[in-house]
């Protein structure tokens, strides 16, 4: 019996941990400076909703847009906006500045740590 439920318990623990982490204040930030995104690859945890803050340090307005994430938001100069993302399946999601399309970046969602099977 116990061994049969072990994976379930483990999964439950993982979800609890993930949820606890999600509740933590640390919301990832994306900076726009000199018409570039930084970081260009933004790692995000899988399977939870994330509050992403996008900060535009330039004087020029930018538009954060992503077909992959289905997100679109103008970020006026010297201001910051909030975008909720996910829960996302693992993968790479491209985003770009619609007002300056040479600027692009990726949201990288890593795979969930594998749950060992059958013990």
């Amino acid at each position, binding site marked *: 019996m116990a061994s049969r439920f072990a994976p379930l318990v483990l999964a439950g623990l993982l979800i609890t941990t993930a949820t606890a982490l999600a509740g933590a204040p640390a919301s990832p930030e994306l900076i726009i400076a000199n018409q570039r995104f930084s970081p260009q690859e933004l790692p995000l945890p899988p399977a939870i*909703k994330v509050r992403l803050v996008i900060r535009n340090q330039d004087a*020029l307005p930018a*538009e954060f847009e992503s*077909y992959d994430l289905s997100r679109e938001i*103008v*970020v006026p100069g010297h201001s910051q*906006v*909030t975008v*909720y993302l996910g829960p996302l399946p693992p993968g790479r999601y491209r985003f770009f500045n619609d007002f300056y399309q040479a600027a692009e970046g990726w949201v990288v969602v890593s795979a969930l740590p594998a749950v060992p099977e059958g013990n």
Partner: protein
Amino acid sequence: MLATAVIVFREVLEAALIVAVVLGASRGIAGRGRWVAGGIALGVLGACGVAAFADLIAESFSGTGQALFDAVILLAAVAMLAWHNIWMSSRGRRLAVDVAAVGHEVRNGTKPLVALLVITLVAVMREGSELVLFLWALAAGGAQHLGMAGGILAGLAAGALVGVLLYRGLLFIPIRYFFSVTGGLILLLTAGLAAQAAGFLNQAGWLPALGNGLWDTSSILSQASVPGQLLHILVGYIARPSGIQLLFYVGTLLTVFTLMRVVGRQAARIRPTAAKLDAHTDTQLTGS
């Protein structure tokens, strides 16, 4: 210049297509041209206003103000389009044969002229404000003024041209099917805008995603491509929809469609002559 033209074109296109479909669908309603023109003028003013206060809007509601604002005006457009379509389903048949009577009804204030104004206003304001911000960014970034002006004009002209072509194309539809086709187009447009609104509410954290990327057809038809974008505007095509977007799309589609049927059937019962008059419609509407 080309890059400017392309972006201007994309922003203008969305407004132009919506206006074209709405103009087609309201064919035969007296005074619609003036109300649509008014909507465009107010939309341009609104766009400048939204652009001017972009930072205030963006930073309100803890940085989700813009998504909420977009969602609200999209839902307003959805409500107006639904009203327009339901109203047309009760009058559409008669419009074809009795333009004068409908003009009279509209003058007496029974009609969706306000809806036409709001729909055009929203379409122009939403895309226009992004355009104004983009052009400002471009100008402030030190773009050459001549090239920029050329790009703006080319983009505007191309976007407007596609709108005109769509409208002229719609007019080729035989009058017998005309209002069924435009009604169907408006229905899909409405559902698509509702799905967009759901996306913005999810982006602002007000609605759950109910599954991100239920499916992914971007390898078949990318939303960044021209056909993908046309379909996105006209029928709400989304390459990677979320559950909440699908729910809003289907929910809006079914609700408005059901109301159209119910209202249409009631109208047919009240005016049994409408069906008989239908036979003559082909010859009667050539002038409008």
